[in-house]
């Protein structure tokens, strides 16, 4: 069996707002586009479509023709295994087959994932990411009548509450870690961005009866075999037990830079989590590679959409449109900065795991083995020693999950550059033998 091969002018990794808007521009300029996503449908996190939430008409009208365009090959359910070269990647499709894709230009638009730090009880069934819970609702999982607590920090909590309320769940409250003062300050500053403010108010309206509490702390999840209650501390430090059967936790977003592993791209280090460095036209540090959206630093859907557009415009050379898009992008960037500042998550806001709390869920490494110091002052400062000694980050996630958590607690966790980017079948990687023999020949 040999690998399935696809070739195009532009390879887009990620079919969220950034990837889709880039595809839109590239197609308009006559490029042949390969659009890849590991999800079964286009949309990414923000525009996720599923049994529980089809796309609104406007989005459907905008993107359905695009996905059916003769010059676009949409490859949903395709997992990136590794970059074989700067213009060639090995993927695995939903059937487990190896797929090789090749294009002169590459756009990395693989988004971000949520940060769910460990706390006592976090491995109980019923505890998930807040965004994960939202995705379940959109995917059609019946959450009607379920009692939900949402906690952590960031705008994702509000968006999740809106979706979940709409699907009939009883959201008991949003428990934000940031102080009320800070959230008030944000609201005031948002007056300068009426459109964004209006969007936020729309979300709030969809979950108007859900209390939005600020300055709380997450203590633990409780339950026998399954989540029964969330234990939180209110701003006065009083413990509150809130009965629930779903706890959605999110402490912000982590750019999916792993999908650039092996490409040797420059990173920006001005953020809590590493993100890809790009120039004003979304070019990465290696020629022919562009990046847009959360992978370049978390900034939300509107910004991602503009960045995707700019990247594609840079490839086709359209200076006027480029200038307009860049102006809009700069405005979106300043809003993104405002959000990032007000939701900046400090280690003190993170929950306190017990020594026995599992930290690395792939290898069952407890918190005590991983961070023998206190949670804000870990004793072991060197990620590689820690990995070899405790096996943290050595499991299926290869540190994608536990490494981000470690970084949130101030440990200098390194990003694995070892293939594969995510688990794929041995047979897929065995294709490297023949893929490389014919690498120099032009594809069909």
């Amino acid at each position: 069996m040999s690998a399935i091969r696809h070739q195009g002018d532009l390879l887009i990794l990620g079919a969220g707002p950034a990837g889709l808007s880039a595809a839109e521009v590239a197609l308009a300029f006559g490029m042949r586009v390969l659009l890849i996503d590991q999800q079964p449908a286009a949309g990414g996190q923000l525009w996720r479509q599923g049994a529980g939430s089809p796309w609104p008409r406007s989005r459907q009208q905008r993107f359905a023709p695009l996905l059916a365009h003769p010059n676009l090959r949409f490859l949903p359910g395709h997992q990136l295994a590794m970059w074989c070269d700067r213009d060639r990647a090995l993927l695995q499709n939903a059937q487990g087959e190896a797929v090789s894709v090749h294009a002169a230009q590459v756009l990395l638009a693989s988004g971000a994932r949520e940060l769910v730090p460990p706390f006592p009880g976090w491995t109980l069934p019923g505890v998930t990411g807040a965004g994960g819970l939202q995705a379940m609702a959109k995917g059609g999982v019946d959450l009607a009548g379920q009692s939900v607590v949402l906690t952590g920090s960031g705008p994702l909590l509000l968006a999740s509450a809106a979706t979940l309320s709409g699907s009939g769940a009883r959201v008991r409250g949003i428990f934000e870690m940031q102080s009320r003062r800070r959230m008030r300050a944000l609201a005031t500053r948002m007056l300068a961005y009426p459109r964004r403010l209006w969007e936020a108010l729309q979300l709030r309206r969809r979950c108007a009866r859900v209390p939005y509490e600020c300055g709380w702390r997450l203590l633990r999840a409780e339950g026998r075999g399954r989540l029964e209650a969330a234990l939180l501390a209110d701003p006065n430090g009083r413990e509150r037990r809130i009965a629930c059967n779903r706890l959605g936790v999110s402490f912000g977003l982590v750019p999916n830079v792993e999908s650039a592993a092996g490409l040797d791209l420059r990173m920006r280090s001005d953020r809590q989590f590493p993100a890809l460095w790009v120039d004003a036209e979304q070019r990465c540090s290696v020629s022919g590679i562009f990046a847009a959206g959360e992978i370049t630093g978390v900034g939300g859907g509107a910004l991602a959409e503009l960045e995707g557009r700019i990247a594609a415009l840079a490839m086709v050379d359209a200076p006027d449109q480029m200038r307009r898009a860049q102006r809009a992008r700069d405005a979106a960037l300043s809003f993104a900065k405002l959000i990032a500042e007000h939701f900046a998550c400090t280690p003190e806001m993170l929950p306190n795991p017990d020594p026995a709390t599992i930290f690395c869920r792939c290898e069952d490494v407890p918190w005590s083995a991983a961070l023998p110091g206190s949670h804000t002052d870990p004793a072991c400062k060197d990620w590689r020693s820690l990995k070899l000694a405790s096996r943290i980050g050595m499991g299926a996630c290869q540190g994608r999950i536990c490494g981000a958590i470690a970084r949130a607690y101030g440990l200098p966790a390194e990003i694995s550059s070892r293939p594969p980017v995510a688990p794929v079948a041995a047979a897929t990687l065995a294709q490297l033998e023949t893929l490389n023999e014919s690498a120099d020949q032009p594809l069909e």
Partner: protein
Amino acid sequence: MAATTYDLAIVGAGMVGVCLALDATGAGLRTLLIDRQPPGQGASAAAMGHLLILDSDADELALTRLGLRRWREYGELPAAQWNDAGTLWIAAAENEIGPLQARGEALAKQGIACQWLDGAALAEAEPGLRPGLCGALRVDGDALIYPPGALSDLLRRIPRDRLTLMNDRSVVQLEEQTLLLDDGSRIHAGQRVVCAGLHSAALLPGLPVLPRKGHLAITNRGQVQVRHALVEAGYVATTHSGSGVACNLQPRPGGQLLIGASRELGDSRQINQRLLGQMLARAIGFYPTLAQMPLIRCWTGIRPTSADGHPLIGRWPPLPNTWVAAGHEGLGITTAPATAQLLLAQLLGRPSGIDGARFDPSRALA
């Protein structure tokens, strides 16, 4: 700063250096173990952890055998995840049966427990193997360990009143009487041993240590119940020829399968995609269900090897009071304890228990 003096300075805290430090402190020597990084992060971290008897010649047999014996004598090593798996040397073709059986007889004559399994017995012993294999030689005493765990267990055993561990300093030069470190300071030691793996030649010019890269891959947990280390008969040939791939599968705790082995000359840690693909295809050929098992990680390691395939263990005549233990290729985890015993005996002028003439580094100077 007053210069501290040590009886012995060991350069390189890989498996070889750590085993030697354990023996040296046990013999009462005030020992310095120095590495430019935390212990065990060189070749010893990349290794498969197969403790095995190899018998290409009497000397290799003696060294691996002593190595295995000493590993067992270390007793309880909690982090080593010791597994008495034994090795199955697999004959895939008819013409591999004869040589493997002869090898089994030779090993048996040396008192090494082994047994011939015919095709049916092999299929019963490891049902996941491809049907139709010709048979296998089972070497019962071989074992599997997790080298980083074993290394930290051994390190913990060393009495701290006799050992100084320095793990953020690089030795840049061996001078007549001292070691020069990268911060410009000097160390006095009565004797010094270089076990710096691949980098030993940088300190001992003329030492014939070459880099031989290998690829490894590992599956997710919960995949298989393989009982033995599964190695194709042709593996031994690749260890000598210098390049190629051979099927080498090892069960890890939790149902992971560790997949080797490839060989090529070179010291770049970068993955050679074609060779990695070949290695995986080879392994799948022997263990078909591996094809659909998820791999979570592929990596490379560099085996420090010598020009003639034998490790370099003993005195290094160009410099006074200088010794070397390097170039163990794919056997350094197995033979580290034996190397330590041999070298320390030479250092102290005592009988070592095995004949070390073949390993004498001065052969490189001839």
